[in-house]
């Protein structure tokens, strides 16, 4: 057992209102620079939809993630030699047109235009070329566009559905969508690291954050196609790749990452997980249907004495182990089993988990009237507006049982709370639903509290980094403090 720690995250999709505050918090802190304008380390997309960059989930197009050939796990981009032979031209690289061309407006024209019969307008200009631009795409162009023929209907997750199911999904009265905020998953088996020829991308062993060394990166740009989530970006100005680094300067000083801190819906949770690094490869080779379960088995119980002993042997301090015991992520993923990885079939073992949204059918249009039918309160999971096949394609590598189990539990918690606080359901009905979902009343209570009433320190349980001790080894702490915030010693300018 090779125990390592990982800062991990949960997104509770039922609570996401799609406001993009997270995206802006991130943009303001990290990517409002030339060459990085088009990058959204955090973005929010509407599902069903094609996402950002367009069709990022389509790995026949970009070849991200891993595949198992025989018994060998290899990057979809190819093995090492085959990959290097494409170094002068990567046929699977998304280009700026797959994201969007960043733009601003000629605001000055609103004030400086000569007097005329028409209102002056501020036309869009490209932030790359400075020329006028007809804006045709943006980072969230598919926002709320459920049913649209360009966005929603081209969602590749719909391939799991039959034609009839697809049509049903787009019937006006059943039209449905939900939001998926995405940041780098800080995977256990990252695709970007595996295909980086320079070895510039690495995973920090202590906390699992995946970062790009800007000094070592040589701009070979395989990471951009190698990441199946398209969360590494090529800075066209500096010729270097950049990605989300989980705001490590913030978490090292005890603050949650910007996007987490800014979240209006409070959908985000952050905590520590302990995992067994020895079994990463074997888990990543598991057949699709068993992938989510296998990944869960990789996450270790911080209360298990053997795990604790092995963690200590690897240099994980008691303070970190006690933080792992309080981790909200551990509860969501392991104890309750209601948080699932996004697209586990990419086999990168993403360490960012989603609580799938409950989208029940409340009513249907029968003979022109709004018909509630004879359903149970809230309806059944199987009657969800979004077919289980679609959810399973997103959150459990096609295994419907896993998504269903999570959703049933979430429904049962609602029923339990209805019975308790509103009383429109009998306790017996609620208990029956809880029993069917395999959930105790204590657990239902805990899920309710963590979902509806968590405080800041319940949502973000961060380990102490002891940065002061780390700094002491290289420089005096007072001197370091004095120097903080002075910026770059050499501006990060593009090489000649």
């Amino acid at each position, binding site marked *: 057992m090779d125990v390592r720690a990982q800062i991990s995250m949960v997104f509770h999709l039922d609570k996401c209102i799609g406001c993009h505050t997270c995206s802006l918090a991130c943009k303001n802190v990290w990517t409002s620079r030339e060459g990085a304008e088009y990058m959204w380390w955090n973005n929010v997309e509407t599902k069903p939809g094609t996402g950002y960059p367009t069709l990022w989930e389509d790995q026949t197009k970009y070849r991200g993630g891993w595949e198992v050939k025989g018994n060998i796990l290899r*990057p979809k981009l190819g093995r*090492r*030699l085959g*990959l*290097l032979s494409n*170094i*002068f*031209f*990567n*046929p699977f*690289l998304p*280009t*700026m047109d797959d994201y969007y061309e960043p733009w601003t407006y000629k605001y000055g024209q609103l004030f400086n235009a000569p007097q005329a019969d028409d209102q002056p307008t501020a036309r869009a200009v490209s932030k*790359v*070329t*400075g*020329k006028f631009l007809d804006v045709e795409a943006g980072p969230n162009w598919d926002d709320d566009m459920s049913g649209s023929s360009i966005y929603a209907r081209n969602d590749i997750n719909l391939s799991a559905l039959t034609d009839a199911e697809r049509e049903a999904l787009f019937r006006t009265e059943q039209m449905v969508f939900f939001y998926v905020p995405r940041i780098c998953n800080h995977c256990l*088996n*990252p695709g970007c*690291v*595996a295909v*980086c*020829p*320079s*070895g510039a*991308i*690495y*995973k*920090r*062993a*202590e906390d699992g954050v995946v970062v790009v060394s*800007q*000094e*070592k*990166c*040589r*701009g*070979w*740009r395989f990471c*951009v196609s190698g990441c199946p989530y398209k969360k590494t970006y*090529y800075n*066209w*100005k*500096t*010729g*270097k790749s950049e990605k989300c680094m989980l705001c490590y300067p913030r978490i090292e000083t005890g603050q949650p990452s910007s996007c987490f801190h800014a979240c209006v819906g409070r959908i985000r949770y952050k905590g520590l997980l302990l995992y067994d*690094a020895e079994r*990463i490869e074997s888990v990543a080779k598991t057949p699709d249907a068993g992938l989510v379960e296998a990944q869960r088995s990789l996450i270790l119980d911080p209360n298990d004495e053997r795990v604790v002993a092995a963690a200590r042997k690897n*240099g994980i301090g008691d303070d970190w182990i006690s933080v792992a015991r309080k981790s909200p992520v551990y509860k969501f993923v392991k104890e309750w089993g209601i948080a699932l990885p996004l697209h586990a079939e990419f086999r990168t073992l993403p360490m960012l988990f989603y609580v799938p949204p409950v989208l029940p059918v409340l009513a249907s249009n029968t003979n022109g009237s709004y018909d509630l039918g004879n359903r149970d309160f809230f309806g059944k999971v199987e009657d969800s507006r979004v077919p289980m096949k679609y959810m399973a394609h997103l959150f459990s590598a096609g295994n419907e049982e896993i998504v269903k189990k999570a959703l049933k539990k979430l429904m049962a918690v609602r029923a339990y709370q209805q019975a308790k606080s509103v009383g429109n359901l009998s306790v017996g009905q609620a208990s029956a639903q809880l029993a069917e979902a395999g959930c105790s009343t204590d657990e239902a209570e805990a899920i309710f509290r963590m979902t509806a009433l968590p405080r800041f320190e319940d949502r973000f349980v961060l380990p102490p980094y002891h940065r002061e001790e*780390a700094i002491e*080894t290289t420089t005096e702490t007072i001197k370091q403090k004095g120097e903080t915030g002075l910026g770059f010693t*050499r501006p*990060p*300018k*593009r*090489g*000649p």
Partner: protein
Amino acid sequence: MLETFLFGVFPYAALVIMIGGVIWRYTTNQFSYSSVSSQFLENRQLFWGSAPWHYGIILILLGHLVGVLFPDTIQAINGVPVRLYILEGTALAMSLALLVGLVVLITRRVISPRVRVTTSVMDGVLLFVLLFQVVTGIMTAIFYRWGSAWFIQTATPYLRSVFTLSPNIEYMTALPLLSKLHAINFFVLLALFPFSRLVHMLSVPLAYLWRPYQVVMWYRRRQIQQ
């Protein structure tokens, strides 16, 4: 006098600039080391430029290198006329391919608005010098037949004399003007090397072929070791 300078002094100046410049840039500004790829901005024309250019130039450069390091091999190959024709024919075909690639790359820099704004002055200078080098090389190959045969009698001993610090410029003064320009321009390229995107040649990621896929770094362990 001029030729003494160009073939006896300038090569050393170029080499010193190149080696010193690379060390200076690598130690003080590694951030600037990059292929500075523009595929992200434009990738349709790039294929027809980048692929033939890179594969062509690698083979042609290797050919020159073999001529300098193992002239006997070239001589042995050229011993039979058919083999000489095949060698020269292949080399000419490769150089025409890389010329096409280079022209596509230059055109693309000019006509693609996105690529044009990311082009530095040095990129322009470099493309011009490279084009000059390729054109003089190809013209030498066409007008002065069987270069692979006389290269090893002239350029090889000259370059070897330069590297042994006893430059014998007579090998070069006897050559036609085109070849002289080709040789001098080569040293110009060496001098430009550390100040242009050419440094990406030093980053050829061969180590990737033996590296495990995952890279995990410990901070704590490094501290403990200290």
